[in-house]
């Protein structure tokens, strides 16, 4: 029997260690299962889009086909956009549990549509979901504390340390071996359930390797901390209390304080404020002479300036024009809001270099494409799609072309993103 097998037998005979390792594996399995269920639910919702969309468009098309009015078509038609989860999203749900991943947009003012759904669910936003990232960042350090706090002090308290130190392969070598074995087993308790879920989800090899490396690095940080505390030669109880305090400070207190500090240093309003400002602008347009609105619109969009002048009757091109002007009136606010989000995100990433818990969380959500950056990228795709949608309807509205049932088939369709985060998900992007 090799020395490693001896150590393994010794470890497995200690009930507390076995319970800790099994519990770690169960929690990890539960977390990846919960993540996969949530992502499966999101995929199912995305997959249901085409059928629902066909029903919606059919209902609108019946009416529009009678009137041939492109304005009605643009006003009543919702067009779905979606942010398909990456294969790795199950491991770190990130922003996906608090921000919308399906957004049905109309060709009207976009900003109010985007920021209507910007209010996070506070119940979810505060603690986050029970996913793999949560287990790794918040719970795994506690298991490191359980398995490592008495590695040296336990031997000293049992009266064995001196005898072990006196053996040729005892002492520091023995403790290093035990540390490595515990790290390996803890790593396996985290990695094996993740690996099974990742393979089942079709995660790419590079992403899997990266996550496995992140797990190892995070465990090494905490074991190094445990080894550092062990050097103080305190009792096992004192070691456990010290490490628990470190956990509290490094995982909960400092990240929270840093979060508050970042928010104060980079103040940004609520997205809902943008939606409100855009709505007010749109509502105000009803009190402005229509010609004034059209003049402003044509100044910014000369490609439509040769459109026939408005008559006395209501025309949707005026309605769509002031909606677009409403969007443009809040463009500065939108840029500032986005820039604020990006600066906060960058600050949080910088913090990750100092606080491993924050760094690991940021790294996992980046790998899983579920972070703020991914959320903003989805917004970019929605904006690009909305611009195409506007152009499509404007082609009918400003040229007074009739819009029939067949024209719905010519409407732009939200393009699937070319997402390579966490592996290929082209199939997942196709609802």
């Amino acid at each position: 029997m090799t020395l490693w097998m001896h150590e393994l037998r010794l470890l497995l005979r200690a009930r507390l260690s076995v319970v800790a390792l099994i519990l770690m594996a169960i929690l990890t399995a539960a977390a990846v299962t919960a993540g996969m269920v949530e992502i499966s639910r999101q995929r199912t919702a995305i997959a249901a889009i085409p059928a629902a969309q066909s029903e919606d468009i059919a209902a609108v098309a019946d009416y529009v086909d009678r009137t041939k009015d492109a304005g009605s078509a643009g006003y009543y038609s919702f067009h779905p956009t979606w942010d398909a989860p990456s294969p790795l999203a199950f491991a770190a749900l990130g922003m996906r549990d608090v921000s919308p991943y399906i957004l049905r947009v109309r060709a009207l003012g976009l900003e109010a549509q985007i920021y209507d759904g910007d209010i996070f669910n506070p119940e979810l936003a505060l603690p986050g979901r029970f996913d793999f990232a949560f287990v790794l960042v918040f719970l795994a350090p506690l298991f490191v504390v359980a398995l490592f706090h008495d590695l040296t002090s336990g031997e000293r308290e049992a009266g064995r340390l001196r005898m072990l130190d006196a053996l040729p392969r005892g002492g520091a070598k023995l403790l290093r071996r035990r540390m490595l074995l515990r790290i390996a087993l803890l790593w396996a308790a985290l990695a094996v359930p993740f690996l099974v879920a990742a393979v089942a989800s079709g995660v790419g090899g590079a992403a899997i390797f990266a996550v496995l490396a992140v797990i190892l690095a995070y465990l090494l940080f905490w074991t190094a901390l445990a080894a550092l505390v062990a050097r103080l030669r305190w009792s096992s109880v004192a070691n456990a209390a010290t490490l628990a305090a470190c956990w509290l400070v490094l995982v909960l207190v400092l990240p929270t304080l840093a979060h508050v500090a970042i928010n104060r240093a980079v103040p940004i309003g609520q997205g809902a404020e943008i939606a409100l400002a855009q709505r007010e602008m749109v509502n105000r347009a009803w009190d402005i002479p229509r010609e004034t609105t059209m003049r402003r619109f044509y100044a910014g969009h000369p490609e439509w300036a040769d459109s026939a002048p408005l008559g006395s009757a209501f025309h949707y091109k005026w309605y769509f024009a002031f909606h677009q002007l409403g969007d443009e009136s809040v463009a500065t606010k939108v840029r500032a809001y986005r820039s604020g989000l990006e600066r906060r995100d960058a600050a949080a990433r910088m913090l990750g270099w100092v606080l491993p818990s924050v760094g690991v969380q940021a790294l996992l959500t980046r790998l899983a494409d579920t972070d703020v950056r991914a959320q903003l990228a989805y917004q970019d795709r929605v904006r690009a799609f909305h611009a195409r949608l506007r152009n499509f309807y404007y082609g009918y509205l400003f040229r007074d072309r009739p819009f029939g049932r067949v024209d719905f088939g010519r409407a732009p369709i939200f393009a699937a993103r070319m997402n390579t985060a966490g592996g290929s998900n082209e199939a997942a992007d196709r609802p």
Partner: protein
Amino acid sequence: MPDNNGNPIAIHELALAYGNHRVLDGLSLTVPASSITALLGGNGAGKSTTLSALLGFVRADAGQIAVCGIDPGTDADAARRRIAYLPENVALYEHLSAVENADYLLALADQRQDRGTITAALAAAGLQNRAWDQRLGGFSKGMRQKVAIAVALLREVPVLLLDEPTSGLDPRATADFNALLLKVRDRGTAVLMVTHDLLSAADVADRIAFLEQGRIVEDVTATGSERFDIRALHARFQVGVGTRAA
């Protein structure tokens, strides 16, 4: 390399201090092969520090120390390969059996043995065969010591260091242990035991050295059938302890 003149344990003018507190002060001691030396002294006389220096846990400030010609201060691993050490309270792994404990400790010493050899050694150490595969949770100190001695026997090292080996043992267990120690000695091992137990030391040791304030103040060798003058030794021991206490 220190000159040991063939003695497995050779200490010459060893000095060692913890900060300002001088613990060993010119200690000289040799333990030849096939002999048992008992080092007696009161608390703080330097007994445990002597063992620590032999095991390479502490480095001497001055003087020479050698285990089979190896300075444990410079090559502790090599020295430890030649030493079996039994601490005062032999604490082994309670969730392993006697055989498993021996197997594990031998693996740590890089001297693996098969089960048959291990059980033979346990038997030689006086551990009843029904206890071989029992977990150590319910073992007495004497039984645990037998396991540790069996490991020492199996390692066949030239040096055995014992720290208060008979403290807490009943007279029968002490007699058993001493008998075992003689077996170990007769295999050629140099045994150094530090102890408070004068009677046990007188019973088994070939030589008794009194340690006071970090140096040997008296060295008595067993002679004749009576071996030692217990009364004289006791009187000497009382003086040493009293001096230290004062």
